[in-house]
């Protein structure tokens, strides 16, 4: 599963990387990401997730071939 992260999340992860574990939803993905870098836990709890330019929530069933974009809180303007 490909992961893209933006902005402040790049302090904790590479901008793009792969997760090999099987994760079925965003909660499971967050749990895996925290095992990679536990300092990211607080920020991850404030992030939104997107697949194919659409926001997803925890109900969305992740596919191992999906590219997941992790979106920290907006700070535009």
């Amino acid at each position: 599963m490909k992961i893209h992260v933006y902005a402040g999340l790049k302090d904790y992860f590479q901008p793009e990387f792969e997760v090999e574990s099987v994760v079925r939803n965003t909660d499971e993905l967050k749990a895996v990401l925290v095992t990679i870098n536990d300092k990211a836990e607080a920020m991850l709890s404030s992030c939104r997730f997107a697949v194919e330019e659409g926001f997803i929530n925890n109900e969305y069933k992740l596919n191992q071939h999906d590219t997941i974009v992790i979106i920290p809180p907006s700070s535009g303007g």
Partner: protein
Amino acid sequence: MVDKGGAVLSAGPIDMSGLLAGAHHPGAGAVVLFSGEVRDSNRGKAVAFLEYEAYGLMAQKVIAEILVTAREKWSLHIAVAQHRTGKVAVGDTAVVVITASAHRSEAYAANRYIIDRIKHEAPIWKCEHYADGTQEWGNNCNCHSVTGDPSRHIYESHG
């Protein structure tokens, strides 16, 4: 209806005069423009410049949806927005929103609605570069600390 104002993201300076000149409509008695500009200080520290990062495809989609919603909600004649990416100098415009409607209440309300939603929802982030060489990612939207959900936002100006 898709906004005809063109690109909502701009890697170079925003042509505010051009956007404003294009925002006339014979049925519009009121045009409101908002320009969000880079201040010379933030939290008491001198700012050198800002750098905006965007998840471009999604930012465009989110902003386009916000503009369509505003246009319908307030029967606007015109609703355009443009947000900078990359480095923006102090005093330069980071984001502009223009609304036009028959009467002024709608143009003001819609304008405020659009900028508030863009700031909370569009996947765009600013990195403050300070004069002392330090830098810091902006973290403006922390609605989730109240709503418990990163997708649910609280706005000052509308419900």
